[in-house]
């Protein structure tokens, strides 16, 4: 199949209650996703707290394009295209590190960590016209950050980051404001995972836990309060939980588990109080945010469970970055965020909770990966090509803030993501 070019084609592939399986399997459509979504829209590169010291860098990608997120000696974070201005080699042999100067080992050009070209070996061979200031590293066309979350776009113009985030901004706040100072530490390392399936499978499905994660939910009954992924009390995915799926617009969607968390906040706080320094943490939260907001933030536990379209998800304690590699191959980076200015026992608890479910050896993520791979294989059967996404369509409604809400297992989230997918893919 050739990738559709026009809105009408995508309108056929993505309908309100069903989508065509080819959007998960067709390499030509994947190429167009790279061009129209990943090489055009806002993508999250991570958080500035990954590179806290001057000279710290992380080599990463913006869609397929190699970029370098680096904190200069002046303290400022910049994003450059990771391409030497001479003949185009990538800089930095390691993925992360700290360098005052970024050297290209091909012919030895040297850049400052603020981007300027510092040195060219035997520069006199270039003649009098050559000016070093014309050959600094190329900044990414657009970069903006929100409370340290670094976003970039390869398109020189377009909506601002705040317009793009829209209603979803408040969920970034919830993630950060689990710390009394609103700051996180992202130097705890990363879980790198990968599955042989399309990137659009990952995240924000409230319908799958009872089956995909049956083993984990069974473990909650076996060892209440101590088991795997123990951020929840009761079953947060059943209709009686009071929880919601929420489509906040622009493709940003979440499994909104605030209702059940608030109902169980006292149990959660009792667990925190038992830890060394737990009482101090609660007191610091109340001091910083006031008793009402602190109670809400503690109930959220810093876990908005939100997907910021297309490549960022904030789930549990992790900043999750999705990297599509091919139509059927996806890398998922999970950066656990520690909270700044909290007792060490709180962060240790958060790390152990994260590892219990996420990462390649967790109790949850490998099962997700397995299911996504089987999903990819199943979509190879094209006699009946449609994927049915109508769950809860009849009962979803608009919330007071304008977002669309459904019951916990409703496919409101998938519909919200795919509506944005269709919009971006249809723009020539």
């Amino acid at each position, binding site marked *: 199949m050739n990738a559709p070019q026009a809105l009408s084609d995508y309108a056929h592939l993505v309908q309100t209650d069903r989508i065509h399986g080819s959007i998960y399997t067709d390499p030509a459509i994947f190429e167009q996703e790279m061009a129209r979504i990943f090489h055009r829209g806002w993508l999250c590169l991570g958080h500035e707290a990954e590179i806290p010291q001057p000279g710290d860098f992380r080599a990463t990608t913006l869609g397929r394009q190699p970029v370098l997120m680096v904190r200069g000696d002046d303290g400022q974070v910049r994003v450059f295209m990771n391409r030497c201005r001479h003949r185009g080699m990538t800089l930095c042999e390691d993925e992360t590190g700290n360098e005052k100067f970024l050297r290209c080992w091909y012919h030895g050009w040297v850049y400052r960590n603020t981007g300027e070209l510092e040195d060219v070996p035997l520069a006199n061979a270039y003649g009098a016209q050559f000016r070093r200031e014309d050959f600094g590293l190329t900044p990414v066309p657009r970069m903006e950050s929100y409370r340290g979350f670094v976003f970039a776009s390869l398109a020189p113009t377009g909506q601002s980051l705040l317009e793009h985030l829209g209603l979803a901004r408040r969920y970034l706040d919830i993630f950060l404001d689990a710390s009394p100072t609103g700051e996180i530490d992202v130097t705890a*390392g990363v879980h790198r*995972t*990968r599955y042989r399936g399309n990137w659009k499978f990952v995240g924000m499905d409230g319908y799958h836990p009872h089956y*995909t994660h049956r083993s984990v939910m069974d473990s909650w009954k076996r060892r209440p309060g101590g088991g*795997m992924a123990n951020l929840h009390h009761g079953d947060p995915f059943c209709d009686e939980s009071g929880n919601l799926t929420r489509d906040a617009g622009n493709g940003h969607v979440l499994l909104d588990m605030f209702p059940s968390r608030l109902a169980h906040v006292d149990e959660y706080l009792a667990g925190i109080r038992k830890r060394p320094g737990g009482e101090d943490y609660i007191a610091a939260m109340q001091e910083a945010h006031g008793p009402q907001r602190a109670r809400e933030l503690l109930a959220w536990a810093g876990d908005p469970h939100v997907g910021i379209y297309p490549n960022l998800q904030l789930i549990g304690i992790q900043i999750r970055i999705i990297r599509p590699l091919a139509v059927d191959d996806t*890398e998922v980076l999970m950066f656990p965020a520690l909270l700044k200015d909290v007792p060490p026992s709180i962060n240790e608890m958060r*790390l152990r909770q994260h590892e219990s479910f996420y990462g390649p050896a967790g109790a949850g993520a*490998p099962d997700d*990966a397995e299911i996504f791979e089987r999903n990819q294989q199943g979509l190879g059967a094209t006699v009946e090509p449609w994927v049915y996404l109508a769950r809860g369509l009849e009962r979803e409604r608009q919330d007071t803030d304008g977002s669309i809400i459904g019951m916990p297992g409703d496919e409101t989230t998938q519909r919200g993501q795919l509506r944005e997918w269709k919009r971006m893919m249809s723009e020539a």
Partner: protein
Amino acid sequence: MDITRETIESFLFHEADLLDEFAVEEWLALWTPDACYWVPCNGRAGGDPTREVSLIYDDYARLQDRVWRLASPAAHSQRPRSRMRRVVGNIRFELREGELHTRSNFLLAELRRGRQEIWSGVCQHRLLASGDNFQIKAKTVLLTQSDEAIDNLSFLL
């Protein structure tokens, strides 16, 4: 229990067989109640697991959870199970304050759903001689691939 190269080897080989054959209950029975089963991440051997993420950092209760879950019919990432065979070698050991510290290399071929992966690394065991066997107090696995993208590490190392 005599602490000789022969008894140490035969214990480590026995453990390798239990892991390869998913005899997980028997494997769990080798551990002491203050167990620490640690697989560091990001190539960070000797890091601080209280503030750095690990692939696995299990105490005894979490280890029990892990073993219990592997037996569940809904642990999809091990349905079907990985077929595994590992070779343990380059064993070194020393006695330190009543504990036996061993260091060994492993090479593990893992086959699942038509894909074969080769895993390798260094295992550091802290063992106690008890009766006519050893018990595992701590095991740290420095996985060569710990900073690479991994899709499925749901079997035991």
